[in-house]
């Protein structure tokens, strides 16, 4: 079996696929790639199923030795990858020869880079998925981020390899956004007009306290609506924007708590969730309200762009 030796893990690198859905009744959130668009495209580029497991690197990439070689694709943000001193292009299938080391550095754009390998990363599945859920220490490689010296198995690719490509136009349309489009949250009516205006006019800074569970934002605080302290805990959706006491919004993300007790003013549309996965600490973001029909048509558009 082909393997990958982790020579350097990078800042925070985990095994991720498209996550495990359907376990909300046990309190298990799906987890999965923070930027699922990049994961899906990367897998297509190397001839995998869209949902094959890959490595998700965060802000600073690692170094990986491929003793038997592999076909890989780097997607998401540009982490300045090289092999033997030559630059490796992102968004393209690349062949790495046996014994070569792929080295990545600090990000030159967004928060996350995906290393997709032909055959996928083979780990023991937990509830049908390879995704790491860090908080509970489940899934992925022993439920944790990679360490120096880890050895990862590469899965067996089943289909004959045919290099896929992604058009420059599609890549441009899929580029991450800093203005996130949102639909109203289930408690948006609780917030008076003045709070709504403040939320949609404001610029928010992504805090250092952000992770795959949620992004904490800093900006003009949104007053807690009257009665907000007594909200009955209910199911929370991916991309929900909660307003806790203190008024600084929290965006629930892929490793989210499945339920929450803070009122939600808005929800990031599905088409823009991958953009959330590319936000770095100190990035400035804004929110733009769209109608349900727009949210649906943008979701369809993303699907069409990914499937080429």
């Amino acid at each position: 079996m082909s393997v990958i030796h982790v020579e350097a893990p990078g800042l925070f690198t985990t095994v991720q696929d498209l996550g495990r859905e359907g376990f909300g009744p046990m309190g298990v959130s799906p987890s999965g790639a923070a930027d699922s668009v990049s994961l899906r495209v990367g897998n297509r580029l190397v001839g995998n199923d869209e949902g094959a497991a890959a490595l998700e690197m965060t802000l600073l990439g690692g170094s990986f030795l491929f003793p038997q070689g592999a076909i890989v694709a780097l997607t998401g943000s540009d982490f300045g990858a090289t092999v033997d001193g030559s630059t490796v292009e992102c968004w393209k299938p690349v062949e790495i020869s046996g014994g070569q080391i792929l080295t990545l550095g600090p990000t030159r754009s967004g928060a996350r880079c995906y290393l997709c390998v032909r055959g996928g990363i083979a780990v023991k599945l937990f509830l049908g998925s390879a995704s790491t859920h860090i908080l509970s220490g489940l899934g992925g490689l022993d439920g944790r981020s990679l360490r120096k010296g880890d050895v990862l198995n590469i899965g067996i690719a089943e289909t004959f390899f045919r290099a896929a490509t992604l058009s420059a136009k599609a890549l441009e349309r899929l580029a991450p956004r800093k203005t996130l489009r949102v639909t109203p949250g289930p408690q948006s009516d609780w917030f008076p007009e003045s709070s709504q205006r403040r939320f949609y006019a404001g610029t928010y800074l992504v805090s250092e306290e952000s992770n795959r569970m949620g992004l904490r934002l800093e900006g003009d605080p949104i007053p807690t609506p009257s009665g907000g302290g007594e909200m009955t805990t209910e199911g929370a959706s991916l991309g929900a924007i909660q307003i806790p006491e203190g008024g600084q919004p929290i965006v629930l993300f892929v490793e989210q708590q499945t339920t929450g007790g803070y009122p939600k003013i808005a929800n990031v549309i599905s088409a823009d969730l991958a953009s959330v996965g590319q936000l770095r600490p100190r990035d400035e973001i804004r929110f733009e309200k769209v109608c349900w029909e727009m949210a649906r048509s943008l979701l369809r558009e993303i699907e069409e762009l990914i499937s080429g």
Partner: protein
Amino acid sequence: MPISAPDCVRFQPASDQSLLIYFGQQITFDFHQHVTKLLRLLEREPIAGIRNLHPGYCSLLVVFDGLKLQHDELEVILRENLDRLEDAPLPQPRLMEIPVSYGGECGPDLNDVAEMHGLTAAQAIELHASVVYDVYFLGFVPGFAYLGELPESFATPRLAKPRLRVPPGSVGIAGRQTGVYPFATPGGWRLLGRTPIPMFQPDRSGMSFLSIGDRVRFIPISREQFAEMENA
């Protein structure tokens, strides 16, 4: 009295791919029964396009595939299922016992909580262990069961400043709720004790020690018994 399919049900889009069904706004056993029945019905007879279900105290969040369904279409389907709730039988609840070592380093807030309510620590323990709780739902993190309800007189506010790390197995209270932290997580509930029983184990059948609808009793144990069980 049989529970009739509720007329008061309200649908609310939560995101472009999720819909909330509210049976009410308060924590009541009736609303909880409606949530459980609908959840069980949708688990038993899955509907194409529904991807996930997040139960709450008196609501159910239904996550769906936005390429296959729209809010109004899903609402029609769910209303048909609501009409059948009466026929949805619920299994006899299991009674689960959770041994707890109260106070000391296991329950760092026990004395404060007792004092808040004008009780001795022993009385507070007795009170917490005397109630048979219902599992209203699991949420927050894998295996975290929201248990209700504590007597009104024992309702206790959360910590003003949540702890950054609550040890796994910690038994906390907040408002009239109580629960056990399955993993080391941040948490604002006041901690009365700790159980040696793992609340979530991937290699155990069912994985989660508790499920929605279970009944739960806490059994006080000594520090020594805790240590023995933890090492067993």
